[in-house]
């Protein structure tokens, strides 16, 4: 019986596939492409910032670069990253289903994503946008002459892809679980995908509406956000962050799920605190909707709104803390192996912990007033988004690559890449915390001389980081051709996805799989 990759190798069979695994691969290729584009923009920015004066590019080009970097990385890479690739590929396998509930909707999700992504890219090619990914009004609606509408249209369309995937995942988890796959046996990765999907379905429409309002003001002069037209610019910020703060959890929750899969496998013991970890994912999804105002402590929001949002922002940190403590406890009495996915997972724990804790500085009202809109914020969210999510994504890719492709990658190079990325990341972003406290505002293309030293360190770190990313790109590609066959279960892992061959057959399971308790490590009968 042929696996999903070789069942039919024609281009048409790929472009019209409804197989969740193939769609996962299509997403993987697409977001890798966008990641490279966003990465090139970041590289140019770090090159510009290596010296204090603005010399490499012009101010307008720099402003377009950070807009491009933010927009592409947030909407075309981070938001779809784990859910659309690993989630798509693994969700049905993990719950013992043959596919997602709506396979054709799943394919549509990819086409919609591709179309919206290309439209966004087009807005960049024809001249770019210089508003920042946040599109703050009235700059974006009245003052800039860049291609805001085109980019907003692209993101508007990409939003539907999120909504489709979210719906699909929710319905699949509810209706297609194998017999015996009870809610308390669901892999924690599935729990996080479920929580993520809830946010995608509930929050994305707000973004869509907001983008439509921007277009209405820009095209027809309807006064919504621009005070000159009778609008209110803070209204935009409320609407934008009402989506974009939960969106941060869209980006990080699936990463937390991946870590919850990797840690028990390489610690060879069951996860500690299953119910608390699962519950904390839902708590994050719910609380995540109530903290958007912490982006506006110095923006003109009332004093009392600030107090409430600060309080709620501290509460949303608690479930993240629960996860970190539970992961730590999962190492207790384990039999720990240090394979590549584990190194990535440990790197995630370190960077995510720093990212989360520095978030508390920003939740603290008086401190946020000083730090907001400085490099401290830049460092904080990169620790979460890149240190957290991207580490988790790469950890997950290394963990499930043998399952997805049937091939093993060179383990030594894998470990080197994990270490390189960890070091390069810290080199890039740790200095930015100090820069922020010293008062270097973000989105500055030229900056005072006194900040140069730390910026040079940051740019040097970025070189290491870029090398670290290039490595997996190279050896993953290499492994497709020359990699040794992986076998069904190279890690000796629990979970239904390891019970089928690698790569899995077209319909995943020939017979309905037998479900056991999650994370049954050490594997009975093997060790």
């Amino acid at each position: 019986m042929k696996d999903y990759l070789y069942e039919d190798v024609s281009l048409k069979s790929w472009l019209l596939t409804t197989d969740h695994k193939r769609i996962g691969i299509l997403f993987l290729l697409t977001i890798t492409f966008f990641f490279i584009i966003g990465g090139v923009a970041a590289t140019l920015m770090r090159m510009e910032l290596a010296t204090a004066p603005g010399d490499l590019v012009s101010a307008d080009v720099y402003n377009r670069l950070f807009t491009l970097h933010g927009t592409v990385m947030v909407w075309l890479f981070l938001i779809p990253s784990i859910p659309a690739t690993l989630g798509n590929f693994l969700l049905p396998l993990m719950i013992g289903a043959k596919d997602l509930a709506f396979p054709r909707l799943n394919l549509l999700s990819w086409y919609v994503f591709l179309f919206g992504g290309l439209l966004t890219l087009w807005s960049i090619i024809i001249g770019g946008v210089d508003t920042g990914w946040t599109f703050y009004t009235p700059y974006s609606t009245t003052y800039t002459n860049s291609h805001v509408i085109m980019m907003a249209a692209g993101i508007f369309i990409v939003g539907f892809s999120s909504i489709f995937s979210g719906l699909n995942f929710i319905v699949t988890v509810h209706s297609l679980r194998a017999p015996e796959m009870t809610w308390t046996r669901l892999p924690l990765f599935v729990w996080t995908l479920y929580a993520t999907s809830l946010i995608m379905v509930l929050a994305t429409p707000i973004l869509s509406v907001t983008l439509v309002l921007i277009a209405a003001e820009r095209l027809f002069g309807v006064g919504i956000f621009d005070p000159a037209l009778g609008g209110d610019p803070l209204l935009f910020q409320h609407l934008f962050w009402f989506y974009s703060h939960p969106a941060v959890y869209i980006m990080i929750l699936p990463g937390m799920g991946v870590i919850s899969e990797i840690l028990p496998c390489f610690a060879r013991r069951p996860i500690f605190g299953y119910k608390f970890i699962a519950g904390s994912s839902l708590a994050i999804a719910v609380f995540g909707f109530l903290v958007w105002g912490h982006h506006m402590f110095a923006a003109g929001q009332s004093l009392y709104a600030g107090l409430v949002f600060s309080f709620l922002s501290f509460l949303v940190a608690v479930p993240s803390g629960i996860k970190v403590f539970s992961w730590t406890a999962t190492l207790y009495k384990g039999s720990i192996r240090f394979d590549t996915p584990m190194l990535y997972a440990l790197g995630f724990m370190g960077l995510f912990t720093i990212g989360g804790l520095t978030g508390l500085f920003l939740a603290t009202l008086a401190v946020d007033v000083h730090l907001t809109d400085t490099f401290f914020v830049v460092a904080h969210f990169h620790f979460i988004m890149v240190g957290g999510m991207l580490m988790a994504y790469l950890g997950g890719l290394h963990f499930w690559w043998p399952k997805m492709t049937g091939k093993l990658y060179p383990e030594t190079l894998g470990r080197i890449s994990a270490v390189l990325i960890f070091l390069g990341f810290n080199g890039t972003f740790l200095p930015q915390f100090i820069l922020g406290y010293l008062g270097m505002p973000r989105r500055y293309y030229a900056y005072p001389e006194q900040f140069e030293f730390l910026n040079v360190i940051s740019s040097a770190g970025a070189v290491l980081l870029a090398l670290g990313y290039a490595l997996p790109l190279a050896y993953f590609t290499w492994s497709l051709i020359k990699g040794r066959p992986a076998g069904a279960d190279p890690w000796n892992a629990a979970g239904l996805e390891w019970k089928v061959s690698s790569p899995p057959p077209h319909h995943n399971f020939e017979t309905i799989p037998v479900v056991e308790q999650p994370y049954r490590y050490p594997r009975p009968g093997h060790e």
Partner: protein
Amino acid sequence: MKIGGVPLFPQQADTGAAGVDMVALVVCAICGLLALGVLVAVVYFLIRYRAGSDVNRDNPPEGHLPLELSWVGGAVVLSLVMFIFGARAYYDLRVAPTDSFEIEVVGRQWMWKIRHPSGRREINTLHVPLGTKIKLKMISRDVIHSFYLPEFRTKHDVLPGRYTDLWIEPKKLGRFTLACSEYCGTDHSRMKGEVVVVTPEEYESWQALSPLTSVQRGERLYLKMACDSCHEYQDGQVVSGAPLLDGIYGSTVGLEAGGSTKVDDDYLRRSILRPKAQVVAGFQPIMPTYEGRLSEEELLDLIAYIRSRSGSTVDDGGKK
């Protein structure tokens, strides 16, 4: 402490700066201890329980309710501590003392225009007297900017269409950074300047070098725009149906459309630009709009003049 000749900590130029740094240190201590705890535990477990080590691995716990509840509780308590520290300092940072001295700031792409009570104006430089409570009343002519004073540990966004404020109390003589921290277009990173803290005596003599005060400029404008043809008495009678301006500032007026509003700077500004939106009860919506006919600076002058007619010299309309 310095690194590469660069200090790791900005100077404290404001009486409130030490307080903010204190809160940051409290948060830093709590977070540092948490991070250290996790790091030590992780490293210890990784070494002790590495594959192949000879240690007891019997019955690894899959949960431990008292432990889990205790770290939930612990996290909530620590959060509350940080919240309270931050909130207290924020209150002090945001609420300007009523006796503060007012300086006006108008932001525009890409410069800061500063106006002192004496009428003296400057661009991208803000002279302030040492040891004085100063409230900056700010507005933008175009997009959102943010008035950021790192050495004073404070900033606030400067919005178009609405006044926002910030207050400082300089405690150190010298020159300090002023920067725009809300992205505002091409030259965002060049929209900067400096705060010059001088002694009160120097400030007085510096300020005195001004032809007209804002109130005087406002009065001239008031007459030039013929505001007086409606808003004044003639032989004890209101000339044409418009509210009298004497004593109106800081009062609460009923509105024609129902409800009431406090007459503060924002209300005056709106009433000049869009007079028909909130008409005082008992009057007809007959005043023409001055939208596009007055700059933000002229609006500030007019408001200063109207305030002076109620004996008010600072923007305390909203606070009384």
